[in-house]
């Protein structure tokens, strides 16, 4: 059923563009939630045969990436009372274009990196693309919260690639991913919270006192 996971991977890319394109923080978070759900589907699609390992992985992923983190983030924006990402460094259409460039680039790089016995030719490019889009969001957005979302995308990309190894490397890998994202996002959320309190705004451009 290789068609399925290819489909899922393409959807992942689409959600990336969704994140790039939307102005409303709430819909950004919705996009990440959907992406999380897609990623949860991936292990089953990649490794047919309902082994406990894959199922557990899918469930865990769904729980964390599709439910917990989005909930946490939307709670955070409710607390911080911010609705929309205003004045990003570059306009949304421009960032879409950049995202397209990033995707093209990652596909270009990916074909230079042959992955033997790989169950999908799309894995590496999509992973790279997601990573790059994540970095793109991290750099172009001003709101600390949006940057957290960018970090989340980055992690998702890595996760996608991690799945390709899920068979051979024991599940400590996935554990690593989940733990990392969980703790990372959680602590960042707390910091964001403090930022909001200290600067009564989530505008990370305010955070530029420390410089030479």
């Amino acid at each position, binding site marked *: 059923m290789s068609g399925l996971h290819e489909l899922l991977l393409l959807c992942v890319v689409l959600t990336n563009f969704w994140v790039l394109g939307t102005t409303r923080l709430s819909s950004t978070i919705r996009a990440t939630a959907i992406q999380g759900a897609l990623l949860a589907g991936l292990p089953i699609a990649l490794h047919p045969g309902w082994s406990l390992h894959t199922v557990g992985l899918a469930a865990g992923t769904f729980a964390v990436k599709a439910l917990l983190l989005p909930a946490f983030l939307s709670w955070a924006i409710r607390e911080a009372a911010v609705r929309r990402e205003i004045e990003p*460094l570059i306009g949304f259409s421009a960032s879409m274009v950049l995202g397209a460039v990033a995707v093209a680039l990652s596909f270009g*790089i990916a074909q*230079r*990196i*042959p992955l033997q016995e790989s169950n999908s030719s799309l894995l590496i490019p999509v992973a790279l693309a997601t990573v790059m889009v994540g*970095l793109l969001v*991290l*750099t*172009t957005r001003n709101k600390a919260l949006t*940057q957290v979302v960018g970090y989340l995308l980055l992690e998702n990309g890595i996760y996608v690639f991690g799945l390709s190894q899920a068979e051979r490397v024991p599940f400590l890998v996935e554990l690593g991913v989940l733990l990392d994202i969980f703790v990372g996002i959680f602590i960042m959320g707390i910091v964001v919270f403090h930022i909001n309190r200290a600067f009564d705004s989530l505008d*990370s*451009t305010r*955070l*530029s*006192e*420390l*410089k*030479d």
Partner: protein
Amino acid sequence: MTVLLWAVGLILAGGGGVLLLRRAPRLGERLYGALLVGGGVVGLWPTLAVLRGGPTLRVTLPGSLPGGAWVFGVDPLSAWFLLAVLGVGACAGVFGLGYLAPERGHRPVAAAHALFALLLVALVGVVTAQAMVPFLAAWEVMALSAYLLIMFESEQAAVRRAGFIYIVLTHLSTLALVAMFAALSVHAEGQSFAALAAGNQTPGAVRTLGLVLALAGFGLKAGVVPLHFWLPGAHAAAPSHVSAVLSGVMLKMGIYGLLRVLSLLGAPPPWFGWTLFGLGLGSGVLGVLWALGQHDLKRLLAYHSVENIGIILLGLGVGLLGLAYGQPLVAVLGLTGALLHTLNHALFKSLLFLGAGAVLRATGTRVIDQLGGLGRALPWTALAFGVGSVAIVGLPPLNGFLSEWVIFRGLFVAGGSREVIRFAVMGAAGLGLIGALALACFAKVAGVVFLGNPRSPADASLSPGDPPPNMLAPMLVLAGVCAGIGLMPSLILGPARMVAVSIAPAIDGGAVSAEWGGAAARISAFGLGLVALVGLVLLLRRSLRQGRVAQVAATWGCAMAVPTPRMQYTASSYAAPLLAAFGPLAGIRRHREATAFHSHPVDPVQDVVVVPVWHELERVSLRLRRIQGGRVRWYILSLIFTLLSLLFYLTNSRFAP
């Protein structure tokens, strides 16, 4: 070797003692002085034994260092420099007791004495180390203890500035030396000098790199123009007895290092000899020229150190050229002259700095144009300073003349050969110019400071009386040694030649030794004759007077009113015509206003080249600093940029699949 270790132990004990007894300064300082002198004397014993042709001393410490054991030893070269270290060190240390005594209470005098002892020990370590790491360790301890001593009066901004320039340049020299040893150790098994020598006999890129770095590192320490500009400030800022050691001994470590490295590397290429030759001429002429323009007594003496280092390098260059072109006589003469002048300069320059210290203590100022007529107040100091002046100018019958005589002979003999080296004879003119300028300069110093009338009322009311014996005795001892060497050259010429031959085994000293002794005897005869004749004429002069008492009157003012002290010729106007003849080279800035005219010297290298360049560098780096603008966005962008360029390297380099 154990004897030398005892000497080091004594000196260290002195330093420790004065530090422990800082509650009872008098007792502590007396102990320190005794141990210092004792250490010096004890240390001179094995040194002289080696110079008399005794066996080379050697001790190997089993150390677990990457590279191997530590080796210390005293061969003729080490012994030669040990003479200066121990002799001058002990004299200056004793002088320091009296010199720093008035500072007790408001400055850490005990610590200064302890650091001085440490400095001496480090100097001993530098000249006796026979392996890389101990050499560099001793080298840096020397540099740092000297730095701390220079900063003794750190509450003055000028001292801090001088200290900073010093520490920066000395660190540069250390870096260069580290790199040099790194280069030389590439082909060597282990870190001992013997191993380096074994590994680097064949010319090659690495050996050339080593030579260049050695020249840079040791040249910096020796204060060769254009790397000299740390020197005047530092030597002026330090307490005078420290200046004496810095200028008299520490500079020589640069010379020692050069000689040591050359003794390891065998005959150097001609270009190296010519480089030293040119640097020597340049440093000599420019150093004395810049000295002539100074208003500060100690800065002036410091610039004279630059000049004398130039003379030494000139001799060294001639010697190396002699080696490179296979002229043993030239080689021996050049090297011997350089070695002799090293020792002589150590003696009379430290003597002069001690004299300057005595003047500073008596009057409280180093500004030459505010001094005058001190000869009456400090007769013995004046005498010692006068001896030092005649010696440094290189006039017979004192020791300065001896070393310049040897170098001159090297130049002339070189001129006689058929090789390219013969063009070195032109250096004679340069050496002559240096001598004449030095004469002008020291006539100025001795004349303006000690003769004529006091220029400031304070000095006029100065109660006559030389400094206390613990300051006066060292000066007289040094003066005596200067005269002794000048009148008894045979004492010193032999050992010097022996050391020179030990540096360059390629040459046989026998070729030179033959007519050498005769000349030495003649020189001492003629020196003594000179002195005797002066005495004789003095007696005649007495008899001519026929009991008449000389009339006494005011100086004839050329039909003007009786001259007042303020009408005396100042040092600056004395030097003006000579400096004017050299134009911008002399580095004098003049300020004319409607009612005032004054000139002050600048260092053409430091103030015209180095400082502006550094400020430009600062400006650039400040502009560059905007990158670190504090926006986290840019931080991540630089990360992305790095990642992408690495991916590019990954996919597009020759490693791409």
